């Protein structure tokens, strides 16, 4: 059976006077029903753009320049806008980082959820309202019935994120794209929202693509993870395998630079990755990570690193792994 979401060889570029700036390169990724897949990266890694591509919402002058995006086996690229609209919301829900910006400030939460339900399901206003209350209660919104009459500004950050999730889930989508859904929230509220996502996955078999920069969130919530750097997947595999034994030097550096509870000031300076994340315009030649890599070889600046399969759905893009694989 086809996976819920299958992205193959996706490339997204921005057209400029002197050629294309490639923001996502040959990205391949799958999300199965009931699976949470983490897409991890820093600024400019292309993680949010990947989500927009899945929704057919790449902002101009950006465009998809290659590859395929299939939802339950059906190709989404090339769909007419009217067809795409039936997919967005109904089959793919979206939750953003800034719930405040995504909600309409002049409509009550109730109106927005009811509209979202009725846009995709042929039910009466009364029935939609009943479902809205049920949905909010399900999302642990305190005092769900009364909250329907609230405007977004009357809600706290966590409540807004719950309202936005209710809208995203109103039409019972099969896939949820969650782009940094907890970054703007306090840690205690973040824990609640992550638990919610976990429940939805278990109860509804929802597939979730969770976009984040936080490896702690990946460890807590994701079955599998893809690590992006400069628009490319540099490592992919089960969360357990990637976090316990990262294969790519970038993943390794990223994990090492994250402080852990239990360490203290006596442990000395933090491990760092030297340099900064390159902008699209300054993308280094060869392996884009080579200027920051502590194990680079002379050919890393000239030749594109190969994707090396490491078994059990695990893989990484590094020439050193290819050499090891041959030697071993």
């Amino acid at each position, binding site marked *: 059976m086809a996976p819920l979401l299958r992205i193959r060889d996706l490339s997204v570029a921005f057209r400029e006077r002197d050629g294309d700036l490639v923001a996502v390169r040959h990205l391949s990724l799958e999300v199965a029903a009931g699976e949470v897949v983490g897409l991890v990266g*820093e*600024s400019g890694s292309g993680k949010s753009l990947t989500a927009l591509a899945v929704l057919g919402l790449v902002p101009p002058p950006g465009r998809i320049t290659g590859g395929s995006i299939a939802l339950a086996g059906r190709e989404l690229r090339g769909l007419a806008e009217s067809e795409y609209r039936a997919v967005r919301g109904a089959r793919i829900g979206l939750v953003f980082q800034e719930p405040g910006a995504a909600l309409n400030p002049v409509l009550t939460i109730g109106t927005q959820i009811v509209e979202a339900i009725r846009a995709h399901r042929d039910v009466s206003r009364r029935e939609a309202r009943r479902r809205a209350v049920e949905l909010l209660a399900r999302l642990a919104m*305190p005092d769900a019935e009364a909250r329907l009459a609230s405007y977004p500004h009357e809600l*706290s*950050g*966590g*409540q807004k994120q719950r309202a936005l999730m209710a809208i995203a889930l109103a039409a019972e989508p099969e896939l949820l794209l969650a782009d940094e859904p907890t970054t703007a929230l*306090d*840690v*205690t*509220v*973040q*824990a*609640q929202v*992550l*638990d919610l996502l976990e429940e939805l996955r278990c109860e509804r078999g929802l597939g979730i693509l969770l976009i984040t*920069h*936080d*490896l*702690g*969130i*990946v*460890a*807590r919530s994701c079955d599998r993870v893809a690590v992006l750097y400069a628009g490319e997947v540099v490592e992919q595999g089960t*969360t*357990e395998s990637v*976090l*316990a034994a990262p294969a790519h030097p970038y993943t390794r*550096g*990223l*994990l090492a*630079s*994250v*402080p*852990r*509870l*239990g*360490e*203290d*000031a*006596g*442990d000395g*300076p*933090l*491990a*760092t*990755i*030297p340099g*900064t*994340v390159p*902008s699209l315009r300054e993308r280094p030649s060869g392996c884009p990570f080579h200027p*920051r890599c502590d194990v680079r070889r002379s050919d890393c600046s000239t030749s594109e690193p190969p994707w090396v399969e490491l078994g059990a759905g695990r893989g990484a893009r590094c020439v050193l792994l290819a050499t090891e694989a041959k030697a071993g």
Partner: protein
Amino acid sequence: MSPLLEVRGLRKEFAVLSPLLKRRVGTVAAVDGVDLTIEPGEIVALVGESGSGKTTLGRSLLRLIEPTSGSVRFRGEDLLALDAEAMRRRRRAMQMVFQDPYGSLNPRLRVRDALFEPVRVHRLAPASERDAIVARLLAEVGLPAEAAARYPHEFSGGQRQRIGIARALATSPELLIADEPVSALDVSVRAQVVNLLLELRARRNLAILFIAHDLALVGRIADRIVVLYLGRVVEEGPATRVLRRPEHPYTVALLSAVPSPTPGAADGRLVLAGEPPSPAHPPAGCRFHPRCPIAEARCSVDSPELVASAGGRRVACHFPGRLAPAGKARDMEPFDRNDVMRKDAGDGATQ
């Protein structure tokens, strides 16, 4: 030796205005009677969630926000008694680093001018020494000398934060108040900036009030940790003790909520219900009681005082230490090399 900074009973109230008539209908105490001491060269972390008052507190210390009452002594001198001009002069010794390295630098000033401005304002050196001073500051924060002629937008977030730190250092301060200085930076760049702050502390004996919400990060750099909840200190003490043996249920919950990148480390975590209430309507009794997993009847009536506890710590809880940090304690065991901790462990953490 007297502390560098000594804050007693600091309180900052904001007026609550009715939306239509702009009449004062009440007050919110964003900071409600906070005591805080910072020694020279010490890194003190101020942690808490939104509404905890940590940013208001940080700014009140410099009187960027005027405190309502209490005292702030810097090297023994009461800052709240100073007139505006004297306070302006005092700020030379206390500088601020902001979260947003994009918003805190004037986009029209070249780095050279941005760095020299505080020196000029405080009349610390003549213009003829500008280039030498700027070059020294840039070198100190790890930026190339060529950066002087460029504008802020030409730099990445991490580099911009280095510029922000260099600017704060320009007047040779003794205290840096850093409000979430790395939260807006990419993960791979955060560690660099944190290490820079550690280097500066070592080199200049700089004291730092590090305002943050990331407990794992804070544990790595702070000597002491102060945990705020709704404008009040709920727990305070040496960083290692507060993080390894938290005694206030809120600290336990905060620690439990930090997602660890170690696979399997999340077992036995504690998820708090609800959200931090608005400081405009703080709960009666202990402000944490509506969310507290071990609250009893007394907690909704009596507000607990901040009292001394084991190991140089202060805790504001009627039942300190009763809520044990489950799963996480195991997670920390390999690091638990400090046998002092074992004396009061008593709940199975001993091997």
